[in-house]
């Protein structure tokens, strides 16, 4: 027995390195350790980063940390924390910050998902697998990359665990596969619950196919069927608690409605469609037709990769039958799921010309495809990688959050005045303190109170403010009794959290000195000066962007009716 480096290994190394280089490497400017969160392009992205940071500090996730849920201490840890735990562990052992490791884990797992799907494809045809894999580079560009940088990383990681579930199903006749199946399903639900429905659906689909082969085609498949049932039992045993939460919280708030049709992805830029594959969509469609033929030809042992490809195509169109935006999240990884059809398409083309040495030729085609997709040479109608460089959160704001975390009492209450950055208000949870924010967004019917007062040139003790938290996804669930969950956000109503608030009650105030509209920053500073005049305020931290005031007498009048 001797170890030999196969051409396949070199090919896989090249693809792995390219995906990491083009994906996270480019986003982070090829640095691993960033001075502040980098490549976070939406509030949701900060939501995950701050929750991971919170769990790292608190140590467990039985309940939500108070600063994430408007100060409550009994809100159930409702968000699937799988990715958070992976990033925390990596952070502890490697010494990198959680805001780096959570992205690293998500990107690395995306690549491992592509490699695992490669192995699923390889089980029925190696040259097909080799020509399929390069398409995966497209998960790190365009619409799919939005999934990574806008905060869909738990969903993407759960999809990778769903691919692992598929891989275990592909090996379901092996010893203890039922145990691994149960673990893979449990890890999926604990990373993003909705992916469990997709993974469970595929398992059920595969189970029915297996039974069909057993009873109709008379091929013994009882062991496989038994292992799938056992896997389901293991899954329920391990995950009953989180299934309960998913059922009582998520399924209750977002019931499945097949009439719920989504055409656009809310505020997201775009939707992944087959047309995004450019000219290669025709090879993929050809591969689908050939895939139907292969399924028929191998009906006694249908290739799981083809079944998975068709299944994920069907799920990707779930926006038409009740899967709403989650269907669009599934499409982020279409370059992985549908890669099998690209590989089959090329395989059939290759078969017309070459009959021998297909594996070597498949590697060459794979490398050519990788170069084509990588965008090194712009070619029209070819789906190509486009570089996305992530901007770091500016150091001054990051310093403010760190200063508050390290220098204020745990029960301090903060108030954030206007800041351009704070539109992504989840970023404020980096302070790890309960916090309010002045409401500065107007709508067509109503100008924000803050802006009205700015225009009138007056400063008052009350401003429309928000007691912030992760309110609106799960409505602050808490245990009311056994298997009975209440929702504080619904019970108290939105007006309890968004209302005119006496700003003199807080402990610390954060004012931005710079804004895209200078009037807003000037108004901020006018309020700060007015507070200083009261005599019980002092500057405790300042940098060129922000200033933090400490209120030594919370509750006492801090502002007369002044003009700005």
């Amino acid at each position, binding site marked *: 027995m001797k170890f030999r480096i196969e051409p396949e290994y070199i090919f896989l190394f090249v693809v*792995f390195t390219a995906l990491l280089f083009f994906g996270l490497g480019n986003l982070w400017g090829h640095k691993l350790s960033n001075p502040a969160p980098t490549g976070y392009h939406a509030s949701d992205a900060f939501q995950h980063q701050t929750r991971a940071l919170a769990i790292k500090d608190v140590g467990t996730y039985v309940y939500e940390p108070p600063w994430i849920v408007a100060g409550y201490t009994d809100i159930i840890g409702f968000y699937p924390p799988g990715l958070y735990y992976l990033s925390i562990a990596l952070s502890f052992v490697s010494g990198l910050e959680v805001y780096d490791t959570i992205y690293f884990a998500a990107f690395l*797992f995306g690549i491992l998902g592509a490699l695992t799907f490669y192995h699923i494809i390889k089980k029925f045809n190696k040259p097909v697998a080799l020509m399929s894999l390069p398409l995966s580079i497209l998960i790190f560009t365009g619409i799919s990359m939005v999934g990574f940088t806008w905060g869909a990383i738990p969903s993407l990681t759960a999809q990778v665990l769903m691919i692992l579930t598929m891989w275990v199903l592909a090996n379901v006749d092996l010893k203890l596969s039922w145990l691994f199946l149960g673990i893979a399903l449990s890890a999926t639900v604990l990373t993003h619950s909705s992916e469990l429905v997709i993974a469970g659906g595929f398992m059920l689909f595969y189970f029915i196919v297996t039974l069909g082969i057993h009873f109709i085609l008379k091929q013994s498949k009882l062991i496989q069927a038994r292992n799938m049932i056992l896997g389901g039992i293991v899954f329920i045993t391990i995950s009953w608690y989180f299934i309960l939460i998913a059922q009582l919280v998520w399924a209750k708030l977002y019931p499945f409605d097949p009439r719920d049709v989504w055409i656009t992805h809310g505020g997201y830029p775009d939707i992944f469609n087959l047309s995004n594959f450019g000219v290669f969509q025709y090879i993929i469609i050809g591969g689908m037709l050939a895939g139907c033929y292969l399924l028929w030809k191998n009906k006694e042992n249908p290739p799981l990769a083809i079944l998975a490809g068709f299944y994920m195509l069907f799920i990707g169109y779930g926006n038409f039958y009740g899967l709403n935006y989650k269907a669009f999240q599934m499409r982020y990884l279409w370059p992985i799921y549908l890669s099998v059809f690209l590989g089959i398409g090329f395989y059939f083309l290759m078969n017309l010309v070459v009959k021998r040495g297909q594996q070597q030729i498949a590697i060459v085609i794979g490398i050519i495809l990788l170069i084509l997709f990588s965008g090194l040479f712009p070619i029209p109608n070819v789906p190509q990688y486009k570089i996305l460089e992530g901007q770091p959160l500016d150091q001054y704001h990051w310093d403010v959050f760190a200063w508050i975390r390290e220098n204020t009492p745990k029960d301090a209450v903060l108030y954030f005045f206007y800041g351009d950055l704070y539109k992504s208000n989840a970023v404020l949870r980096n302070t790890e303190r309960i916090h309010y924010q002045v409401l500065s967004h107007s709508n067509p019917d109503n100008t924000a109170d803050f802006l009205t007062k700015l225009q009138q040139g007056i400063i008052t003790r009350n401003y429309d403010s928000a007691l912030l938290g992760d309110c609106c996804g799960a409505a602050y669930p808490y245990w009311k009794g056994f298997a009975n969950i209440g929702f504080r956000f619904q019970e108290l109503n939105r007006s309890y959290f968004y209302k005119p608030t006496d700003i003199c009650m807080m402990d610390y105030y954060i004012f931005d000195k710079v804004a895209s509209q200078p009037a807003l920053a000037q108004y901020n500073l006018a309020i700060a000066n007015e507070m200083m005049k009261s005599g019980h305020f002092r500057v405790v931290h300042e940098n060129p962007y922000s200033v933090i005031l400490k209120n030594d007498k919370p509750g006492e009048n801090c502002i007369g009716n002044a003009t700005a």
Partner: protein
Amino acid sequence: MISRVRTALETQQLKLEAQKLVMLLFALYTAIQIAFFKESPIIVGRLVLSLFFLFVIPGWCVLYLWREKIGFFERAVSGTLLFAGIFVLSAYYSGFVGIHIKYSTWIIPFIGYAAFIIQFFASSLHGKVRKH
């Protein structure tokens, strides 16, 4: 006699697997260093060792059971994901009995290592992988 031959074969196979693990370690290090070429080799090295300690080796240990049917690289990739799953489940639920993640991070990988020891010494699992 049979058991001695079996043990020798096992040991030889294990040596080969260990060689492959070392190769994988270098390959992963190289890939990450290329992707993050502006980063210091120490930070990259620490990250790679962390990945190996937390997920890759424990995953390989767990899937050593399937070594006769599945190639090394496939087991290493899927084993990493599988053990990440085991890690997530263990860390989350150990929080319910009050174990801080800073401790469970260091303890949980040993579930994988223990699984390997059990496989290596439990004769009922020796090289037997059911395939129907």
